[in-house]
Structure formats: C-alpha cells, structure tokens
C-alpha cells in the first residue's frame, strides 16, 4: 500500500497542530460555532443528533493491520467501543468528544491516517472495487490510480470550495462493484490496443434527485486523465449552481445542460488547456505509484485444498460460509474473504474494537497484511489461502463475525438514520434489523440468493436506497415514521434507479411486506439460479407491487 513520504507526514502533523489550536479557541469561546463549523468540517468533524461525529478517511478502503488496530484503540479509548464503516469506505466514530479530537487525529497521524476532505464541498475519498488487486476480472489493479487521484485532489487549491461535495469512484473490472455510475465521476479503467485508459462517466448520484451518470468519454488515455478530470471539474466549478444547495451537484449541471452540451464544454475546456498547464503525468511517476501496490508474493497452490474440504464436510455452517462469503482470486489456491459486518441483530456496518483487532490479527497471520473496507460496509481480506480458511472462519465466528450473508438479503446497506443523524427523518437501523429477523435462517437466506436491500432514513440517500434491488426510504409524516419501498434499483454495470411502488408503510408492516415480495420471487423465479433482480426485470414491477401490498 501507499506509504507517506516526508511531505505527507509533515502536512498531516501540521494540520493536527492547526486544528488543536482551533479546538482550544472554540472551547474557550473565542471562536463562535458559526466560525468554527467550516473549520471542523474540513477536519471531518460533524455535530450530530447526540454527539460529535468524526469521519476518518480510508483511501480507497485500504487498511493495514496497524491502522485497523489504531482504529480499534480509538473506538475503545475515545468512543463507546465501536466504529461505523461507511459507504465511502471510510469509518465514523459517533461519540468522540471535541476536546479529544486533536489527540485522536494525532494518533491517526502516527499511522498515516487523517480526516482531511471527509466533509465539505471538496473532492471526497476516491472509492474503488474492494476486491482490487485480487479480482480475476480486473484489467489492472485500480488502487494506484485511486492514489494518483487522491494526491491530485488533496488540497487542490482550485477545487477546495466546489458548489457541492464531489465523489469519484474507480473500477477496473467488467462487473462493477464500485457503483461508478452513481458517482459524480465514475472511471472504468480499460485496455485498448495495448494502452491503458479510462471510460469516463459523469453526473451520477443519488440524493433527492437521483441520476445515472452519462458516458462522457469512452477512452481517455492514462497520461491525460488528470487533465481531463481538471476539465470536468472546471466546467462544474464555473457553472455548477451555488444559489441552491439542492441543485448544486454536478448531476444537475449535466442534466440542465444536456449530456451533449456538457460533453462539448468539457472537451472545449480540455482542448483549451495550455501546454504549460497540462499535468501530463510522466510514465515514471505512474510506475512509481503502481509499485506501492505490488501484489503479495503468492505462490500458486492446488485449486483444491484437502484441509478445506475436510473442514467443510465436518461443519455445515462453515461450508455455507465458504459458499457465500468467498470470491475467486486471480492466483490459484487463494480466495478473497468478505468479513460480514451484518450479523443478525447488530447495527449494519458497525464493528467493535475487539472485532477490529481480530480482523487485524487475521490479516497479519493469514492475509498478507491487507484489509479493505467495502462500500457495502463490510471488511475484506483480499488474499487468503484455501488451507487457512478454517482457522480464519473459526476466529471470525468466535468474534461474532461469522455471518454467511455477503450480498444476501441481510447484508443491507443502511445509513445511520435518525438514531444518529440530524438530517434524517426516520430511523433506518431498527427497520433493517426487523427485516433481518425475517430472513435470519441462513438456509432460507442462501436459498433466496443474491438480493440487495438498501435503507435510507431520508431523501439524502446515504443508505443508497435508489440502487437497492429493494430500497427502503424512511419519511416523516406528521411525526410518524413511514417507509416507502422501491423496487428495481441496481448499482452495478447495469445501473438503474429503483421506482417507488406505492404508499409508504408503517415500520411494523415493512418486514412482512418484504417477506411477501421475496416469497413471490421464490415462487416465480425461472430457477433457483435466477436472481431476484433478474426475475423482477423479466416479470416487471406490477406483480411484485401487488405482492408487496397484498393483505398480510
């Protein structure tokens, strides 16, 4: 992974010292909240419903064991023993006292972490495929490009005060696991005639006005991508709406201008860049960054492990976990493991300090020191030998992390909702947990197959309800929580926005309604191999809608 150089380390240290001074002045009353708010937001500090929340950057979702252990320590010493992994592949602590935050940031700086640009109208954490570097279907490891974009976008003076926040996602695999088409900019790395380049999508997003991104350029050569991104950003910075925060995202600009006109303006801006202004990233620099992401030295092993097969035969729960939570690896004899942070009954995406320590230990012992955070709010061990899976599972299961539900119905993306968030209108976590209970039988869940439920507690859509196969959106009707159900969304290469199918349901009615939809799917699917989303697309929404609202 990328390691800080002397400049990175100094910048982060100085930033901590600067914020320490700002906090001291705030606590003394010298700085008023209105003055302090933009300063704290630039350091990832929000004031939420119950307490301050600190959002910490995890660039492209990659962590070392040392870093994860430090997060565990912070959870124990400064929070209430847990942290919450987010859809931006970051982590949030929900109970950190402002007076302690400078100390927390100092501890983070010691392990090359920070909270810079995790808030505010700037370019946020660049996200990517959580299987990067291990996936069989990638053309190259996208993390190096994420790091290059991170370096370019961090403290970029031109893009520090954009009309609104800005999110970039990168994938290099045909199957899009990074949801690039619902990002402000989505980049798909491709090879063409031996050359690496980027398919560029712009103007995707969720929130109150969801859009699927427009394909703006099918292939920008790698040496030109930063210049092209600058052209995209400049057009947005110049013409993005600053008069109305609800119309300030780039998706609105692309929509209002029309795709063709927006593309014309980007191309014009790109062409107008003077030679001295071009970044023209040298190949040597690209190679230098790529070297940080060299794959671990994995000697191929037999594709079948006797140890693994014996353990599977002896333990059906382990066998199920291996069927559900593993992903093929590019090296024979290895797999990628999803560590589910969605055990039945726990807040989705949360991990205790002890659990973080367990994952860090496993990464060190069995996973070549590599840990990822997925945008679906799980942790990933990208490189695990088949022979080691029984030991890995045993440790995870003992720590309450043995759920076999990756991409299944209880593996929900869920925003914090009104349990934590000031913007939310309704609670997300309790309704998600109630739905989880209905599908808690692992055999039943496995039979249902892959099905994504995403839950948001308000129209801001932090729980990505627009792109869940089933989306759940909490709304407040005269002080009572109701939940609108959406069907048909997806965040992959066939990205689509779900449609609200009818009137909102009371919280108590949601689990049974979802159960009826799922049972309808099971009855109507062409075969057990046909996924929920494929059956839905084949049959159309109407009959699923009827099932949803059928008398219980």
């Amino acid at each position: 992974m990328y390691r800080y150089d002397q400049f990175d380390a100094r910048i982060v240290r100085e930033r901590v010292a600067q914020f320490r001074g700002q906090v001291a002045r705030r606590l003394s009353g010298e700085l008023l909240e209105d003055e302090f708010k933009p300063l704290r937001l630039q350091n990832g500090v929000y004031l939420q419903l119950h307490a301050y929340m600190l959002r910490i950057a995890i660039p492209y979702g990659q962590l070392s064991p040392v870093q994860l252990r430090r997060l565990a320590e912070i959870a124990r010493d400064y929070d209430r023993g847990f942290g919450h992994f987010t859809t931006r592949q970051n982590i949030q602590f929900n109970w950190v006292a402002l007076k302690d935050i400078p100390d927390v940031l100092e501890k983070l700086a010691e392990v090359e972490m920070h909270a810079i640009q995790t808030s505010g109208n700037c370019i946020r954490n660049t996200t990517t495929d959580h299987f990067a570097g291990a996936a069989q279907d990638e053309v190259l490891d996208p993390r190096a490009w994420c790091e290059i974009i991170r370096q370019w976008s961090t403290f970029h003076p031109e893009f520090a005060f954009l009309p609104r926040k800005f999110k970039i996602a990168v994938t290099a695999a045909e199957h899009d696991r990074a949801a690039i088409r619902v990002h402000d900019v989505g980049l798909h790395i491709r090879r063409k005639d031996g050359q690496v380049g980027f398919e560029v999508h712009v103007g995707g997003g969720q929130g109150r006005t969801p859009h699927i991104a427009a394909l703006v350029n099918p292939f920008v050569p790698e040496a030109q991508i930063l210049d092209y991104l600058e052209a995209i950003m400049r057009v947005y910075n110049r013409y993005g709406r600053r008069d109305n925060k609800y119309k300030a995202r780039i998706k609105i600009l692309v929509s209002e201008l029309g795709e063709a006109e927006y593309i014309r303006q980007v191309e014009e801006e790109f062409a107008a860049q003077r030679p001295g202004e071009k970044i023209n990233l040298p190949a040597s620099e690209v190679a230098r960054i790529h070297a940080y992401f060299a794959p671990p030295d994995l000697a191929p092993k037999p594709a079948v492990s006797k140890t693994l097969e014996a353990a599977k035969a002896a333990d059906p729960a382990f066998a199920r976990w291996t069927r559900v939570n593993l992903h093929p690896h590019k090296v024979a004899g290895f797999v990628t493991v999803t560590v589910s942070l969605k055990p039945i009954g726990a807040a989705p995406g949360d991990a205790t300090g002890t659990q973080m320590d367990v994952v860090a230990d496993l990464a060190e012992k069995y996973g070549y020191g590599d840990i990822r955070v997925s945008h679906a709010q799980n942790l990933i061990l990208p490189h695990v030998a088949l022979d080691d899976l029984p030991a890995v599972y045993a440790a995870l299961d003992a720590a309450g992390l043995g759920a076999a539900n990756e991409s299944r119905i209880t593996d929900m993306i869920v925003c914090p909702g009104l349990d934590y968030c000031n913007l939310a209108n309704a609670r997300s976590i309790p309704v998600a947990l109630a739905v989880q209970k209905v599908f808690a039988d692992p055999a039943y869940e496995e039979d249902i197959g892959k099905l994504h439920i995403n839950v948001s507690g308000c129209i801001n859509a932090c729980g990505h309800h627009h792109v869940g196969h089933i989306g759940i959106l909490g709304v407040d009707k005269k002080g009572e929580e109701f939940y609108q159900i959406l069907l048909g969304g997806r965040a992959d290469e066939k990205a689509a926005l779900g449609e609200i199918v009818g009137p909102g349901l009371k919280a108590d009615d949601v689990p049974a309604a979802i159960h009826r939809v799922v049972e309808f799917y099971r009855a109507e699917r062409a075969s057990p191999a046909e996924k929920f989303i494929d059956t839905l697309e084949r049959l159309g929404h109407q009959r699923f809608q009827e099932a949803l609202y059928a008398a219980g």
Partner: protein
Amino acid sequence: MSSVRPRLKPETPKAVTGWATATGLSVWLTAEGAWTQDASRLGVFTGDEAEARLAAALKQEGVVTDPYFMEVTADGRISGRETLRESMRAEPALSFGGGE
C-alpha cells in the same frame, strides 16, 4: 442543528436545548439555570423568561453549542412537530455501543 426549526409562539411552553461544546452531548437547561444531560430535568419556560434564557444560553459559546427552543408541554414532556427527533435526542432508541 435541525435544518428547519419551528417558530414557537411566546405562550407556548418550551425548553432550551443544545449540545455541550466540549463533548457534543445533548443538554437541556434546567429551571435553575444549569445544563443537564437528563431531559427529564429540563426547565419549562414561556414568554419573556424563555427569550431571556435563550439569549443567555447563546452567550455561552464555550459551554453550549447552538442552543434553541424545543416545544414541550406545561409539565415538561416533549411535544410539537419535532417530537420524534427530540424524543430520539432525549432517549436514544438503540443501545449504542453495547458490543463491549
């Protein structure tokens, strides 16, 4: 920090609430003028007294952040349009951090 806060009439019973600046924890002003993390101890104010209490709270920047009026009944129970949100602030529904 709610984006839209209801405007309350002078005669409407109200409490003063905000967040402790040092910790960020929710606090309520008691009838005696102290800040408490226990919403059941909140003071109920109306009219000029309420305005004076809020004005005083707004001057305590280092102690309390973003104080505002919250609608309550005469006997101090949360009421009005923001009942759901304010009830959540007063009594979190989840057992946060119960893991360890």
